[in-house]
């Protein structure tokens, strides 16, 4: 009955006509200081919007060390990610939530009920190994909303080049699947490097796509035998690479080399990269004294250290997640003062504004509600 009601509320226009927020607010009169969701999730763990959650529905092995996790997101998830974006996934390891980010490999679908991420177990990667080998269907995980600018433009460029290394294929796969689903694949060249054939994620599907679409050309390079991609070979592999919008995703050294190559050719505007590490490009703040209101602790902060790190140094139990500004686990309320986002220089200074401590630093004195 509840499922039925929920489907009605969420699947069509009824969602817009029933003031769902108002129902929840009325319900919270019964559950204060908690929310109705805090009780509803006792019935079904996905029936809460307090924290985004998902249930692992399937774990599909892709290669020896990689698997695709098919996840059913819970309430509050909007199936509006763009092809190429990544999501945060939080799992409890030894009682503690740890977060990682992975590209969504499934194509965006409004009516969709699932998303898929593909994970490779990295050597000594404790969390990735747990994701590939330790999760069973039914496990509830935490999710963070899709983020990222490494996306398929609308409309897609007429000529594209994908330079992919290893598990960097996942965001590109989402783009290829999206193009395939629409049935209009433009002129696409995919160069895909992988140590061996067996370790190549999505190999069979890519081969199928290549057969289905004449405009899709795929070069495979097995680096254990063929060596790494030399960018000077690009002229041979894809003579018109200069005319193509290029999307590159893979290990950092590969991306560095590609960036350099495109810069030398004066084509950096054509190059789009996905890196899974935080780049703090923005200017630092001036620094200042941060007061942690609840404990009364104070700490001096230079303009380059994040508030999260400063809080941890001071021994405040700061919440944290991805540590790169995507999962919002670290968000706390800024009571007064001003902080600057180290990624882009955006400043936040509203009283009681929610700020992400892992990517912000102080501009002058600040007080935080923690």
């Amino acid at each position, binding site marked *: 009955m509840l499922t039925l009601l929920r489907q009605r509320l969420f699947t069509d226009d009824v969602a817009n006509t029933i003031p769902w927020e108002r129902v929840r607010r009325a319900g919270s009169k019964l559950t*204060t*200081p908690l929310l109705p969701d805090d009780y509803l999730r006792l019935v079904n763990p996905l029936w809460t919007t307090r924290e985004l959650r998902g249930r692992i529905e399937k774990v599909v092995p892709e290669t020896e060390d990689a698997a695709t996790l098919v996840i059913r997101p819970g309430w509050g998830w909007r199936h509006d990610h763009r092809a190429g974006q990544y999501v945060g996934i939080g799992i409890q390891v*030894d*009682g503690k939530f740890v977060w990682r980010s992975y590209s969504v490999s499934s194509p965006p679908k409004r009516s969709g009920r699932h998303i898929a991420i593909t994970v490779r177990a990295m050597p000594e990667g404790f969390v990735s190994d747990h994701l590939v080998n330790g999760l069973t269907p039914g496990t509830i995980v935490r999710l963070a909303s899709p983020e990222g600018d490494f996306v398929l433009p609308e409309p897609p460029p007429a000529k594209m080049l994908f330079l992919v290394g290893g598990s960097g294929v996942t965001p590109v796969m989402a783009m290829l699947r999206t193009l395939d689903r629409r049935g209009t694949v433009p002129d696409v060249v995919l160069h895909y490097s992988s140590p061996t054939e067996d370790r190549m994620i999505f190999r069979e599907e890519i081969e199928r796509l290549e057969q289905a679409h004449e405009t899709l050309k795929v070069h495979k390079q097995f680096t254990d035998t063929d060596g790494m991609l030399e960018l000077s070979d690009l002229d041979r592999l894809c003579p018109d690479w200069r005319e193509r919008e290029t999307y590159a995703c893979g290990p950092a050294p590969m991306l560095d080399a590609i960036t350099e190559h495109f810069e030398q050719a004066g084509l950096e505007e054509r190059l789009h990269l996905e890196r899974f590490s935080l780049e703090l490009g923005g200017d630092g703040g001036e620094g200042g004294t941060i007061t942690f209101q*609840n404990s009364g602790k104070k700490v001096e902060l230079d303009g380059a250290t994040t508030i999260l790190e400063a809080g941890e140094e001071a021994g405040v*139990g700061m919440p944290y997640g991805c540590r790169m500004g995507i999962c919002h686990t670290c968000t706390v309320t800024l009571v007064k003062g001003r902080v600057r986002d180290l990624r882009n220089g955006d400043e936040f200074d509203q009283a009681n504004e929610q700020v992400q401590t892992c990517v912000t630093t102080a501009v002058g004195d600040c007080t935080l509600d*923690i």
Partner: protein
Amino acid sequence: MAISDVQEYMHLTDEEIEQLGRELDAIRKEVEDSRGPKDAAYINRLIRIQRYLAIAGRLTLLVGVHDKRTRVPAAVTGATLLALHKILENMEIGHNVMHGQWDWMNDPEIHSSNWEWDTAQPAEQWKHSHNYVHHQFTNVLGYDNDIGYGILRMAREQRWSPVNLGQPVYNAMLATLFQWGVALHDLDIERIRKGEKDPKEMKRQLKQIFRKGRNQILKDYVVYPALAGPQWRTVMAANVGANLTRNLWSYVIIFCGHFPDGAMHFTEEEIEDETRAEWYLRQILGAANFEGGPLMHIMSGNLGYQIEHHLFPDLPSNRYGEISVKVKALCEKYDIPYTIGPLHKQYGQALRTIIKLSVPNSWTNSDKPEPPTPPQKRRRRSDSERPDRIRQLGAWSRGTSQERKAS
């Protein structure tokens, strides 16, 4: 004069006190390093149980009161379930979550920064008046507002005034309306009366209390009774009963923490230049435990391990039992008093103190060693008058970002 000059540990050298401090640090480290899935499962299970109790209590009342035959049993059962839910939520869950005992799980849904508990006091004010003022300045006269909560005279060092004659009555009122007493605690009415309180801050706090209190009252005394229709009186009575039970129980438990005979008071001079080890010592001497089985400890938020809680306010409460064995052994080793007794005895002593101190000192004998210090004014201090916070409290050793990145 430093705390080590207090009679109870005159026999210890500075080096011995520092050694004690190191041994307590080691206990802390051991527990921190061993926090894991079992602890996480404990708090998650408890929260689930508490929420089921709430649902069961509300449903029993809503459904059961309409039939004449089931009305009384339903009211009693419903009130009991609700009382259990509120007690668990306030004591073992809310109080401990707000101390940051479960912050290590990195779960924003069970985190000190945003937990709001099921009582009238806003969490933010509780964290200031309790986590900061009380746990930092435990039992320091003039600094710790929990010595009598600004209502009762609980230390012989506090000056007597004729107002104190009413103590037995104030005490009964405080016990009955404990939730509201706690709600007003951080406001510091004494400082408001003297015009020392920042009016802006007061307004902000009052607004917070009003909003939270209103929601609590609406829920228990308007919305749920209204849902019962013609039987609203029964539901209202059951809700009053549940709140009253919670009030009395938490009052008793909390009064057993620092008011039994063994718990000492300290003076400003004694906390001057206090080291971390001396802070530990003060916590041991200022707190009192009571005995009980596992269920008793859960229902009292593990505050029967008050000494352990004061030594390690942010370690998970389910570990206090095992910690207490080690702390007790340390106290024996260093010949430091470790106050413990059955609940009725501990509360009895607190009650006797309340009654005795309602009259001037000269009329009664002290049950504690005579205070070595002259009488103290009872004026409460503001934050700016308090010495700088000793950084060793609370989450002080929860690892640095570097360590976390490595893990």
